């Protein structure tokens, strides 16, 4: 097995008496995508938010390997965690509104990430933003239009461009195609797959949709009531689910 980029041990998050996730262990390596499957309320988004730094965990350990050095994420200060979000950890939200400023242009949204990383040359910022938009297939003619005027699928493409702008080590995708029409979602999925393949980023793909996970991730875990109930290769999970809940999930997906 390849060296991990992200490693979770015993991640637990409680909200008062409610346990959102418990004793979650997982590893993901560079160039690899790990799927987290589960229905809403299963705790998969909580796991993602703890890794992203949006939620403080109740207990557990998360390590991120950056430039050969293992950072213990949960020991970092809020300031250091936010700094990681500039160019090391990127999140793609289900709703582009959470990841974009709709009043700003597509280029401006990408420029935010670039200027945060210290870019101060207008021409180079423009060139990089154009390059990224081309990569996600947003017409360059729309580069200077406010993202609020974009369709849902196009907003999601801009969000992806922004997320990969600084070549992050870890990409967290939270239901990246859930809000989109089937045909638009298929296009965005294709795009995500090629981005993951080209960039060599380590990624976590959270989805309730077996189809999305099977398309993006070679390995997956199934979460149920806050715990990982099954883990394995995505194809095997789909063909031969062991845990009763996984079987039910696969059956439900087949309709």
């Amino acid at each position: 097995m390849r060296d991990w980029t992200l490693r979770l041990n015993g991640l637990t998050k409680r909200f008062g008496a409610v346990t959102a996730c418990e004793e979650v262990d997982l590893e993901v390596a560079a160039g690899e995508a790990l799927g987290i499957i589960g229905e809403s309320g299963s705790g998969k988004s909580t796991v993602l938010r703890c890794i992203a730094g949006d939620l403080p965990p109740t207990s557990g350990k998360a390590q991120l390997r950056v430039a050969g050095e293992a950072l213990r994420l949960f020991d970092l200060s809020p300031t250091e965690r936010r700094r990681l979000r500039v160019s090391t950890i990127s999140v793609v939200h289900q709703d582009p509104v959470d990841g974009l400023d709709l009043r700003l242009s597509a280029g401006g949204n990408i420029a935010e990430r670039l200027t945060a990383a210290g870019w101060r040359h207008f021409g180079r910022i423009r060139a990089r933003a154009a390059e990224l938009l081309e990569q996600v297939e947003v017409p360059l003619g729309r580069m200077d239009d406010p993202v609020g005027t974009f369709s849902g699928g196009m907003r999601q493409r801009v969000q992806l461009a922004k997320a990969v702008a600084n070549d992050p080590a870890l990409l967290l995708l939270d239901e990246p195609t859930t809000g989109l029409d089937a045909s638009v979602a298929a296009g965005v999925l294709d795009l995500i797959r090629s981005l993951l393949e080209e960039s060599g980023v380590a990624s976590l793909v959270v989805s309730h949709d077996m189809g999305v996970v099977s398309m993006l991730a070679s390995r997956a875990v199934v979460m149920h009531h806050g715990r990982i109930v099954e883990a394995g290769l995505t194809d095997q999970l789909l063909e031969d689910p062991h845990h009763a809940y996984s079987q039910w999930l696969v059956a439900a997906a087949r309709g």
Partner: protein
Amino acid sequence: MSHATWTTSVVELASGEPDELGHLDEQSKRDIRHALLTAVAVPGYQVPFASKEMPVARGWGSGGLQVTLAVVGTEDVVKVIDQGDDDGVNAANLRRLIATTTGTAHTTDARTATIIQTRHRIPEDRLRPGQILVLQVPVPEPLRGVERDMRELCRMHAEGDYARMWVSLYEDVVRHGVITRTTGYPVLVGGRYVMATTPIPRFDVPKLHEAPFLSLFGAGREKRVYAVPPHTSVEPLTFEDLPFEVERTPGAACLLCGAKESYLVEVPERDGWICSDTAWCARRRDGDEEAELVSEARDA
């Protein structure tokens, strides 16, 4: 009631002790000086202070007035300008208030003043070490346009997270081809804090960079003071490939003194321009050599 009687009664009201100077009591002055010392120690950082009710409305220079009254001493000579003009109604009122309540001398000559309180301008004369420039500030928060939440603003300053400020400049250039901000241009002070330069024109912004004098900024309504100590870097925020430019109207010259390189304001009824710094302009017309020299140095 005569004017003199009225001002005497203000002095009596303001100071219980006969040796107290000016409208503010000693404790208030100490509090403001305390905030100012913090401001000088952390250049560009906005320090909260207990802004007092002043005999001028908030928004009419109450912040600058409190700063001036907190630092003024019996040896000081005070100059007050509004848009470069000593005789503006607001400037004249503030000057009279300062002079009559403190008894300090006042002048219109930027060279001999020790404290220059100003709204929207920095005098044309090169200020020298030891002089204090007090700027009246309406909006001290440079990031107000990109964020409204106070806690988030504090976080952005604390972490030096100015990406959204840069994005607003980026969007400006995309939409207009240039950075359109003309007054209150954002600057980076001492390489650390982004600061609003009050509504001074861009023309005056370079005067703050590595300046030999002390600049104190007072925002009465917003209850903040901040400072640029002498010899501190003040860099206008701009992209590496888009140099910062000051306002200039090609061919414009002062109708009164003929200056081309001073900061000029338009006089539509005379279809021309005049110097915004009225005292400097008057000295030039009287043939003051020093004013000429500064002007020629700029021409060259």
